[in-house]
């Protein structure tokens, strides 16, 4: 029975049966394609609405202007004008009244509506039910390597494909399965939509675990909002280098860290390191943080799109992303760190395929200036003005061209002298490394610079849909610090690149574009785990199921690390040698570090390894936080951070080392943890999107 999903093959059917079923599958396929078109259209609409919304993200604006249209709000109404979902203060015109008399801001209302229409409210939550099967059965079942289905797929496509693979051969069993799996692997984009979307799923979770999650939703929301303020990217958690303003000062300490990288133990240092994050880099990465407005949407669109283009394109999507844009995977520290090691690593990786990689890495010297500006060393000014630009895709050269025409009404970067020397900088997100950086020239002493410059990115067209272009404007301070003049982000999934039009868009401040879900804004893959709290033998199950079982001391937390999906490729040949590391915070003698064995050359590795944390009371777990991080094993240098998850109740904070760190778990991270606590002695399984950073907000 558990094999059901595994072994979809129609080999055991007679020919006529196969035909019948295939016919059904074809009808379904038709329906699904129409449906995906519809869904895509809806999501495009939503994106449009969102883009019109002036303020984005975590409500860092003045309370006295509407979060949507930016009309001033009267002081009296401020208190009653906060949208419950996004926490923006909005004016009456930007509200949509719900049937029950409450209201949401227009964007949130639209979003909720789109969720209904697309079915995302349901599909986003795809944890299988809590099973009443004997737990080992369930585990065994879920240990099986299932082919991945797209979230809307209902297996039809899979069946269809697999049956197409099977010719008439009567005994294709093992073979089919293999084809199957490899297909699933080749086609990571199918999983993306599924897993990415799950990030938003905590809303729908509530219905299932109402009394637990209700408050979590709030807190998850809050915490993610707050964390977005300080959340930093540094997906490389490894870099011990505190980013300092002064490169030279840092080099001694930092390089010792980096160049000691010949030891694999490197990774072990990480958690402590993470806590050491200097306050400076809190600012650094905020720039990048905002990235895609809502990653889920674009990439869902991608998967939709892939379908229409046939299956070829889909293979190129996620797994290869790193391939064509080498900087994505590596070099995020390289941005700050021009040390030999990273350069060596860089070349070692031979990401020759990308046209942009090599020469841009050489050009870094010239751009060091702005690197520091990103390291938080910049002035902030009140953002104003707009950018006029257009984007197009050049089929011949296979490149995306961002034409920066001009800017109007920029703020003065140098406030004392009331002048600006603006230049425009572009990143093709999610790659925010130097490989993705393009800059225009600097125009002196003007707030209305005219550039008429084209910034190019060599990239496959099919890969564009997961990307977005971040355009930022900077003041070049020759004798003073650079200043950030504003930015905007354009997701490419809905951009018409065939008939480019000049667009004129208002610049926004950084905080505005920092999204609450920022740690998730770069898709890093997923981690599939199962959690079980094993009650001590003495306590009766009945007692434990109740809210309190205070007496127990000897309980155990079992963390089954099943598999990861769609990991970033870090090694030549588009693979990674990954392992998972677990910490249970606060660290005690019993909850030390655990690691899985390394699974080589696999971006969808199966670890099937269990961490056991002993001597834990159920009550304690509420105050604890489990951090699982995935690493690419590097024999000769430091391990590369591939992503991580943080499981906790999502509330409060926790002492890690000397620092107080907020338990900023969100979505499934919270619900899975809750599930585990709610049902001791049974496995709670979940697929968690990997965070691109483990940085949490320190207090």
């Amino acid at each position, binding site marked *: *029975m*558990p*094999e*059901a*999903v595994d*072994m*979809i093959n*129609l080999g055991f*059917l007679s020919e006529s*049966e196969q035909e*019948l*079923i295939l016919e*059904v599958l074809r*009808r*379904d396929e*038709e*329906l699904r394609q*129409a*449906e995906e078109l*519809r869904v895509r259209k809806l999501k495009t609409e939503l994106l449009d609405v969102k883009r019109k919304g002036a303020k984005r993200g975590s409500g860092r604006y003045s309370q006295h202007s509407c979060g949507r249209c930016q009309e001033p709000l009267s002081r009296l109404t401020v208190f009653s004008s906060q949208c*419950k*979902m996004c926490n923006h203060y909005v004016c009456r015109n930007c509200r949509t009244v719900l049937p029950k008399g*409450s209201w949401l801001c227009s964007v949130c209302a639209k979003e909720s509506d789109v*969720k*209904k*229409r697309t*079915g995302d*409210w*349901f*599909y986003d*939550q*795809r*944890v*299988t*039910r*809590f*099973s*009443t*099967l004997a737990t080992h059965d*369930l585990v065994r079942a879920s240990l099986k390597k299932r082919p991945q*289905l797209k*979230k809307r*797929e*209902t*297996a039809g496509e*899979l*069946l269809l494909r697999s049956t197409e693979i099977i010719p008439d051969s009567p005994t294709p069993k093992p073979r089919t399965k293999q084809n199957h799996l490899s297909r699933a692997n080749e086609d990571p984009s199918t999983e993306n939509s599924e897993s990415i979307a799950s990030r938003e799923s905590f*809303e*729908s*979770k*509530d*219905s*299932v*675990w*109402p*009394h637990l999650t*209700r*408050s979590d*939703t*709030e807190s998850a929301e809050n915490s993610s909002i707050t964390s977005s303020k300080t959340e930093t990217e540094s997906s490389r958690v490894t870099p011990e280098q505190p980013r300092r303003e002064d490169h030279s000062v840092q080099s001694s300490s930092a390089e010792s860290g980096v160049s000691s990288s010949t030891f694999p133990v490197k990774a072990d240092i990480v958690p402590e390191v993470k806590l050491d994050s200097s306050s400076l880099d809190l600012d650094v990465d905020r720039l990048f943080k905002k990235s895609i407005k809502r990653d889920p949407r674009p990439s869902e669109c991608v998967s939709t799109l892939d379908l229409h283009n046939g299956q070829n394109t889909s293979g190129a999507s996620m797994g290869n992303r790193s391939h064509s844009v080498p900087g994505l995977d590596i070099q995020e520290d390289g941005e700050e760190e021009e040390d030999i090691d990273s350069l060596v690593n860089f070349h070692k990786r031979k990401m020759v395929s990308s046209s942009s990689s090599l020469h841009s890495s050489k050009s870094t010297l010239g751009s060091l200036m702005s690197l520091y500006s990103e390291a938080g060393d910049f002035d902030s000014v009140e953002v104003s003005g707009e950018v006029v630009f257009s984007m197009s895709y050049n089929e011949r050269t296979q490149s995306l061209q961002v034409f920066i025409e001009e800017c109007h009404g920029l703020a003065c970067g140098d406030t004392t002298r009331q002048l600006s020397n603006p230049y425009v900088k572009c990143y093709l997100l999610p790659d925010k490394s130097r490989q993705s950086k393009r800059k225009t020239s600097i125009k002196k002493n003007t707030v209305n610079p005219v550039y008429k410059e084209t910034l190019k990115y060599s990239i496959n067209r099919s890969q564009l849909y997961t990307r977005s272009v971040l355009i930022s404007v900077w003041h070049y301070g020759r004798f003073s610090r650079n200043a950030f003049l504003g930015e905007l982000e354009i997701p490419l999934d809905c951009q018409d690149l065939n008939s480019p039009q000049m667009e004129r868009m208002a610049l926004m401040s950084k905080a505005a574009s920092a999204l609450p879900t920022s740690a998730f804004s770069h898709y890093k893959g997923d981690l599939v785990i199962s959690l079980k709290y094993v009650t001590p033998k003495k306590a009766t199950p009945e007692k434990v199921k109740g809210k309190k079982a205070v007496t127990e001391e000897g309980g155990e937390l079992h963390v089954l690390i099943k598999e990861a999906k769609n990991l970033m490729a870090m090694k030549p040949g588009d693979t990674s040698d990954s392992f998972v590391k677990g910490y249970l915070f606060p660290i005690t003698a019993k909850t030390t570090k655990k690691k899985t064995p390394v699974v080589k050359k696999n971006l969808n590795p199966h670890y099937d390894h269990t961490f056991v944390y002993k001597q834990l009371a159920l009550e304690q777990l509420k105050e604890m936080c489990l951090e699982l991080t995935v690493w690419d094993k590097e024999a000769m240098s430091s391990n590369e951070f591939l992503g991580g998850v943080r499981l906790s109740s999502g509330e409060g904070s926790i002492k890690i080392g000397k620092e107080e760190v907020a338990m900023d778990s969100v979505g499934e991270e919270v619900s899975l943890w809750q599930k585990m606590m709610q049902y001791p002695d049974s496995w709670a399984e979940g697929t968690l999107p990997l965070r691109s950073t483990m940085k949490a907000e320190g207090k």
Partner: protein
Amino acid sequence: MASATATYGQKESSDQNFDYMFKILIIGNSSVGKTSFLFRYADDSFTPAFVSTVGIDFKVKTIYRNDKRIKLQIWDTAGQERYRTITTAYYRGAMGFILMYDITNEESFNAVQDWSTQIKTYSWDNAQVLLVGNKCDMDDERVVSGDRGRQLSEHLGFEFFEASAKDNINVKQTFERLVDIICEKMSESLDAGDPAVTGAKQGPQLTEQPAPPHQDCAC
């Protein structure tokens, strides 16, 4: 209801004029009447002859409910064990299940528990389930009383109907109730961000809520 185009097929499936799309799966032992049930609902037709379903099939029907046009893709599954690998693959992504037994067939009733386990194993968390005792027109041959059905449904936390595809009893009601439940679930899950609403709704509505009112058939 106002399902003007109740015929299935290209016309219906290519129709994009709807608000929501729900996927529903009908499961249960072989020959309990799943296909008949679907045909009655989608085509308003009934044939007493038994033709075993091969693997899976589906029909599309758009209904008008709660001021929304809802397109239903209703999957009919083979009850036979040999197709199980195919049918269970369709559990994922199904928003609603109609779990059917035959009131004249004890075995099919006894299998309900297993089917329910299957749902829990393969379906997604917030999928909704209705238990239906079919063939309630054949009261003479009844071996499963309405009470037993009801009790089991309460035990499992599903709502319950007795129905007859042949006499068209409770067929439409079953589907409409399921659609309503899914709609409720949908609003619930989206309003979850609203503390005021969910705060009030805490408590009994956990994963397996006992079914509220039962609308059994009169026979």
